């Protein structure tokens, strides 16, 4: 089960991901991120505080946006990853390509700092 909450704030898009991102539920995640990009605010933060598990399909969703992040000059920040999930990102090397921070405050600071 994966629950996704998407909201449009003043100058950024926020997506909250809760539950397990496996092969079937990753489609929901992909739709939400696609929507965030289509809003063209160029600032997206992903709250993964309650992301319990992520499968390779879920990682594939994040991975598929790397190119678009660079091309559209979007600030894309993931925060709140649990130790376990962060390790999964790390093993694959995604932590080197995506901005991953600890808290929402850090994420917002980065967004507003630019």
């Amino acid at each position: 089960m994966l629950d996704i909450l998407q909201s449009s704030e003043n100058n950024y898009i926020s997506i909250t991901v809760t539950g397990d991102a496996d092969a079937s539920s990753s489609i929901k995640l992909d739709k939400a991120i696609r929507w965030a990009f289509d809003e063209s605010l160029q600032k997206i933060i992903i709250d993964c505080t309650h992301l319990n598990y992520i499968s390779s399909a879920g990682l594939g969703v994040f991975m598929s946006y790397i190119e678009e992040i660079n091309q559209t000059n979007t600030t894309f920040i993931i925060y709140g990853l649990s130790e376990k999930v962060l390790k999964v990102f790390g093993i694959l090397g995604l932590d080197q390509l995506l901005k991953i921070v600890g808290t929402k405050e850090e994420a917002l600071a980065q967004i507003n700092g630019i």
Partner: protein
Amino acid sequence: MKGKLTPRFYMRFSFAIALLLWLALTLLDVLQVLASRSQVDLGLSPLVPLLLIDLFFLFVGFHFRFRIKKIESGNFIDFLWQVFAIGLLATLISLAIGLFKESIDGSALANNPFLDAVLYSIRFGLISIFLISTFTVWKKLILYQKSKRLLIWWNIFEGTILLSIFYNFTGQVFQESAVFQVLFGAMALMGLILSANLKWVAYLNFKQKWKSILLILLVAIYLGYFFTSIYVPGADTPDMLAPIDNLFILSLFVFLLFYSIFSLLVIVFNLPTSSVFEKKMEEAINFQRLSQSIQQGENENQIFDILLASSMSAVYADAGWLEIERRGSDEPEIRRKNISPTNRLEVLSQISLSKQKTVLKNPLSKASIHDQTLVVLKKTNFKSALIVPLAIQEEIVGKMYLVNELSDGFNKEMINIINTFASQASISIENFRLLGEALENERYKKELNIAKKVQRALLPTQLDHDDAFQIHAFTQAAAEVGGDYYDTFRLGEHKFAVVIGDVSGKGTSAAFHMSQMKGIFQSLVQLDLSATEFLVKANKALSACLEKTSFITLTYFVIDTKKKSLEFSRAGHCPTLYYSSKNGKAEFLENKGLGLGILRNDNFKHYVFKNEMAFQKDDVLVLYTDGISEAANHDGEEFGYDRMERILNENAKYDAVSIQKMMIQKLYEFCENKDLDDDYTMVVIKFK
């Protein structure tokens, strides 16, 4: 002897006996005439001829009892026909005798008492046969669809009738004996009550009813004629009736006549309703056709055609059509009956224009998609229309339009029938589709089994190695096919390449990418590249063919057994578990490295790194896929790195096969009976 005792035998036997009895009776009559003429007393008891008559009745009864069994029980017209034929024969002979007597009137022969006796005996015999055979048939008709109570009543009546055969021994006559009259009254009453059993009439169709009326009418006429010819004396006698001395014959006459008249009346009054009954039968048959059409191997279109035809005939619609929505087509398919395409479009436009629409709730369903619509039409040749939705599992698959040239052409009873038809047809079609899907699934299963075999063949059965190390692999896929990959290659006399990889996702798409990886490995490995170069080139090759959201994790090892060195690069794959015999403990080789296909440009080379290390005797390498490290038990707890590390520490002293077996056994123990939800692969290398 046994073979002789068939109903056929009894039938013939009883007939022969009856015939002999009749001959004896006739002979006796003649003899009595002769004796009275020559005034000689035969010395015979007057009871003997009576006994002969009674026995004759009994055997004729026997005969017909067996004879009637030859006719199928539902075949009422055949029954009546038999009665009619015997009656006709008896009447013709009887009339012929009458004519013969008239023709010889005045001659010496006319007053011959012998001839009189013989002719009387013939007529008497024929009439008895007719009465008894009719009785047998009426019995069959009365007892059609009998109840237990009816059977009891009938048995009492039949028993009484049988006993009445022997009443003639008393010598009483109807006109004089009160007992005779009372007994007769009682039997007539029973006959009257039993005559109310006419269930068989309902099963006659219109044509059969007319035939039955004709046949029964003739039978009634015969009965009247015979009664008159026996008991109504000539005009010169003052009495109304000749002395009636036989209770049996009299009761029989009365009962047979009652039943004939009752049947006649009931059939006549049932004539107008027979078309309704036939209609109901037709509906039942159509319903059965709809439910059985699947078994007969008919296709969807045939089911639709049966539905349209039976619905039209059930509601007396003049024309109709079906709109069927097909998958993969925007335009619905139209199946028409009695209406031209242009006429149909015209009616359709009138339906949408009409303001007089009535929505009728479907009593079988609460959902509004099942509602029917009744439309009043103007300006077309059809004046009313009924629109019935066809739904399979709450999804509309089509609509049925029925139109009538009369306004108000549909009534509520008809609409209920249509509901039943529509839902039955929907069920039939759904079954048909499910059957098709089941067959399709069966085919896919076979294909997947083939894919499984092909994929198994992609994984090596022999792993390249030399005396310096043992290598052992284990793999298991969650589905038929999986995305785990391992392979080996001998690069030189002491140089080996070993690879382990995992494609993102599961199942068929993962399996396809895995086979691509195999192709890339087999091509690139020949070039004898360094581990990082291998990954960079593999990434480039995969960038062009991997799906956008797919990636492959891989660790590539080059083992040199002469230099006792190990070079490896990790591309996002799970860190290798390494047991150092020198340190006596296991650890994970966690170094950086990006998965293949994640960064599909030249920057990739900045994200993979070369690692070199020396190995010693009894060192162990455990390569695995994340199916093992991330395997979870019922509580959602993962098998995890710490557990794997501990197991290796405890078992590093054993050989490669034992280490692998122990590791997988512990994994299964940890997961208990939980189903495999990922692919498991493990390759264990132990240096010697």
